[in-house]
């Protein structure tokens, strides 16, 4: 672990002397990209962070939203890409552990986990398959053991992730507003480290996450212990209820170095600590190792001496260790001692605030001609093509994944995974809907429009359950920021997200930046992920059967925007074309009208149109509800497109609505009034999914057969190749 060249001078200048070895380690951890956001922080300020429901407090690692009646939800997103790429099981599992502790730090109980998974081409690449299988198992074993339901996510495969993995995890917490931890501390308060013992595992992890995998330090593996984490959750929540916690911080990247310096900096205090007081797992750990170890399942608590006994009692009950490692001082210094000897004594604001960078950016050369389309080979048999498409890893049902996650525990899950967004019931009678989405294929072609598209897609998914988006989480994952072309794609995505968030007044309540996502074969495609939280005041739109004679209505225009579509990439092996663009006004009108008709109880089901276009969205409805349908493609509002473009364009702002015929008039009146583009495109019934154009049949799938393939192909691929 080391500082970059200029940074050593910077540090020496700031503290007026040569740093000690421990100081170097502490600062290197805290000034790493992962902990300091030095490349991105200046720019992240553009995101709108305030809103009527947002509660901001100093020192929170997660966003807090007021959901009324004295309750709050908290949310956070993290990734664990580098560790998962070398040890998918432990990397993914400890990723879940980390984000859960961020939720816990606010004093709320974690109630849901989301995961976004990205790997290379699992059809051909055995290593990618191994990574995928083990990452899923890691998340399952960790979340299931904690008893926190993993209720949603996404899975995507793309060659750009070969020999690599993107593992994103988001978590949601819930609690009483009055129980939120109001981080504070006063001189004489004590600093307690609670949880697992500190070992040599994960040393240098945060810096590892900030390096490219090429130069990886493979010692940074972390072993998950969900059982300890579960006990920590219960102990912390009990201590919170008993008012034993003044300030709370989880230990993540950078270990004690970051937790101590950031807590001190956020609360404008100093902390003096002794590494000999830290409970360790291995003998003879030196101060440097103890300060930067990233051993999992640890929390830092500031409390007062008179509360210590009670806190120790709780820890004893839950059989977890807690050690008093230091105390609060007045001097805004982070003073690390080993017994009597001083190892480090640094101003906390110096440690916690790396010098921010203003990196150069430049539009990448590859974007020059990316929108030009090549001539495609005509598809002779669309039915056959659809069967192949439905079985393809990106389109196939992800039931093999979410079936391994306990998504029911907590008995809040009203809408289960497998639909657009999952919905949880809250204790105040309201419902929370949430989904995360990313789309690197779109973002590669147009980082700005692609990122906006992810944002809109996540909103659409939440809207389809009847929820109004109230908050957003963003996770910006890019390659090496020192490359101006990469940095340009980062800035473009960020600007797009900012513009959309401002237009829709959806505050950003949390986020994360992960850079240096590159492998020897190159940079990953820009992969921003957006998580949306939506609130439902009355009833969510949940499972009702679709019956014969029910109508299907599409809201929104289908446009000639095939760039980055699954159809271009999977069927035609072509990367290019113009990617879908969101028209903000149209997006807003469509979103509001769909919410309106759902709230009025007019629709039985709503589904958004996204990956794979209309053809896949309609088929998903049919396969999920086990019923056939007849679709007339000429009725789909579009820009005079060929059939394949109507079928497979991934234009945004489109929704499919299912309703009883008797409600159609009312629906049309409402939709007309709000001036949305829409049309009735077909009816349900029978056991075949049929797409026709001017009475000519284009696609004809048996519901049973396609459903089997759609449900099973991912599992078959993973287990039996």
């Amino acid at each position, binding site marked *: 672990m080391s500082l970059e060249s200029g940074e050593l001078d910077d540090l020496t200048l700031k503290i007026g002397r040569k740093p000690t070895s421990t100081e170097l380690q502490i600062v290197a951890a805290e000034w790493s990209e992962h902990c300091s956001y030095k490349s991105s922080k200046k720019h992240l300020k553009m995101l709108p962070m305030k809103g009527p429901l947002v509660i901001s407090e100093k020192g929170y690692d997660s966003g807090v939203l007021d959901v009324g009646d004295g309750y709050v939800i908290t949310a956070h997103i993290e990734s664990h890409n580098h560790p998962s790429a070398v*040890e998918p099981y432990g990397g993914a599992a400890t990723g879940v552990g980390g984000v859960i502790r961020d939720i816990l730090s606010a004093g709320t109980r974690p109630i849901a986990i989301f995961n976004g998974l990205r790997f290379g081409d699992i059809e051909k690449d055995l290593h990618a398959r191994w990574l995928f299988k083990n990452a899923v198992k890691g998340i399952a074993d960790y979340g299931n053991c904690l008893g926190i339901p993993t209720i949603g996510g996404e899975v995507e495969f793309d060659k750009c992730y070969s020999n690599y993995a993107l593992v994103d995890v988001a978590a949601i917490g819930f609690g009483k507003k009055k129980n939120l931890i109001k981080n504070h501390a006063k001189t004489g308060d004590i600093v307690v480290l609670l949880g697992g013992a500190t070992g040599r*595992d994960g040393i240098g992890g945060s810096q590892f996450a900030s390096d490219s995998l090429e130069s990886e330090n493979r010692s940074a593996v972390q*072993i998950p212990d969900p059982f300890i984490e579960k006990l920590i959750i219960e102990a912390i929540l009990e201590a919170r209820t008993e008012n034993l916690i003044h300030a709370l911080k989880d230990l993540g990247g950078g270990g004690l170095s970051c937790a101590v310096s950031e807590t001190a900096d956020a609360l404008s205090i100093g902390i003096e600590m002794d590494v000999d007081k830290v409970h360790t*797992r*291995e003998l003879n750990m030196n101060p440097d190792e103890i300060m930067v170890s990233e051993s999992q399942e640890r929390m830092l608590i500031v409390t007062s001496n008179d509360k210590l006994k009670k806190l120790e009692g709780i820890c004893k009950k839950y059989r977890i260790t807690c050690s008093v490692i230091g105390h609060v001082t007045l001097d805004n210094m982070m003073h690390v001692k080993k017994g009597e000897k001083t190892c480090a004594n640094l101003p906390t604001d110096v440690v916690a605030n790396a010098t921010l960078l203003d990196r150069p950016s430049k539009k990448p050369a590859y974007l020059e001609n990316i929108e030009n389309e090549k001539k495609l080979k005509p598809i002779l048999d669309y039915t056959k093509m659809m069967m192949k498409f439905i079985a393809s890893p990106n389109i196939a049902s992800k039931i093999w994944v979410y079936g391994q996650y306990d998504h029911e525990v907590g008995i809040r899950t009203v809408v289960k995974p497998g639909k657009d967004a999952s919905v949880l019931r809250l204790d105040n009678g309201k419902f929370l809907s949430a989904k995360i989405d990313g789309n690197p294929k779109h973002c590669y072609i147009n980082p700005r429009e692609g990122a906006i598209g992810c944002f809109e897609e996540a909103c659409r998914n939440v809207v389809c359950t009847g929820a109004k988006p109230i908050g957003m989480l963003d996770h910006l994952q890019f390659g090496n920021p020192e490359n101006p072309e990469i940095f340009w794609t980062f800035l473009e995505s960020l600007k797009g997200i900012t513009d959309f968030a401002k237009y829709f007044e959806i505050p950003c309540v949390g986020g994360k930046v992960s850079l240096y996502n590159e492998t020897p074969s190159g940079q990953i495609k820009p992969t921003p992920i957006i998580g949306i939280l939506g609130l439902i005041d009355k009833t969510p739109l949940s499972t009702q059967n679709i019956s014969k004679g029910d109508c299907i209505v599409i809201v929104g225009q289908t446009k000639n925007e095939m760039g980055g579509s699954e159809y271009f990439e999977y069927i035609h092996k072509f990367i290019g074309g113009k990617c879908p663009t969101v028209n903000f006004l149209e997006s807003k009108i469509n979103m509001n009208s769909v919410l309106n008709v759902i709230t009025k109880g007019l629709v039985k089901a709503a589904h958004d149109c996204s990956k794979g276009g209309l053809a896949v969205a309609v088929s998903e409805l049919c396969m999920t509800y086990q019923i056939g349908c007849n679709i007339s493609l000429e009725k789909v509002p579009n820009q005079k497109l060929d059939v394949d473009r109507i079928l497979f364009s991934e234009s945004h702002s489109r929704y499919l609505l299912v309703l009883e015929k008797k409600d159609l008039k009312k629906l049309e009146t409402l939709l007309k009034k709000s001036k949305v583009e829409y049309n009735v495109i077909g009816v349900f019934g029978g056991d075949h999914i049929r797409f026709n154009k001017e009475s000519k049949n284009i696609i004809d799938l048996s519901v049973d057969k396609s459903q089997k393939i759609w449900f099973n192909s991912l599992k078959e691929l993973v287990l039996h190749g």
Partner: protein
Amino acid sequence: MAIFIVHVTIENKPGISDPEGETILNDLVLKGTTSTVTKIKSAKMLQFTIKEKDKKSAKIKVQNICDELRIYNPMVSKITIDVFDA
């Protein structure tokens, strides 16, 4: 050709924690009546039955299988291979 039984023991590398072994020790064994146990490490074992010309080649084959098919992840675990006559 002869038949061999090959035991592959997969365990965490030294220095890497073993939460399962620790829990079995602290929450079960040390709560029992025997107090002379000082450590428990958990491991996984696979017993291969393989037809090869000799012990050496049986061992090499199994080692290759374990490496190629990622039966274990060398980042976290190490394996020990013992060959026995069937």
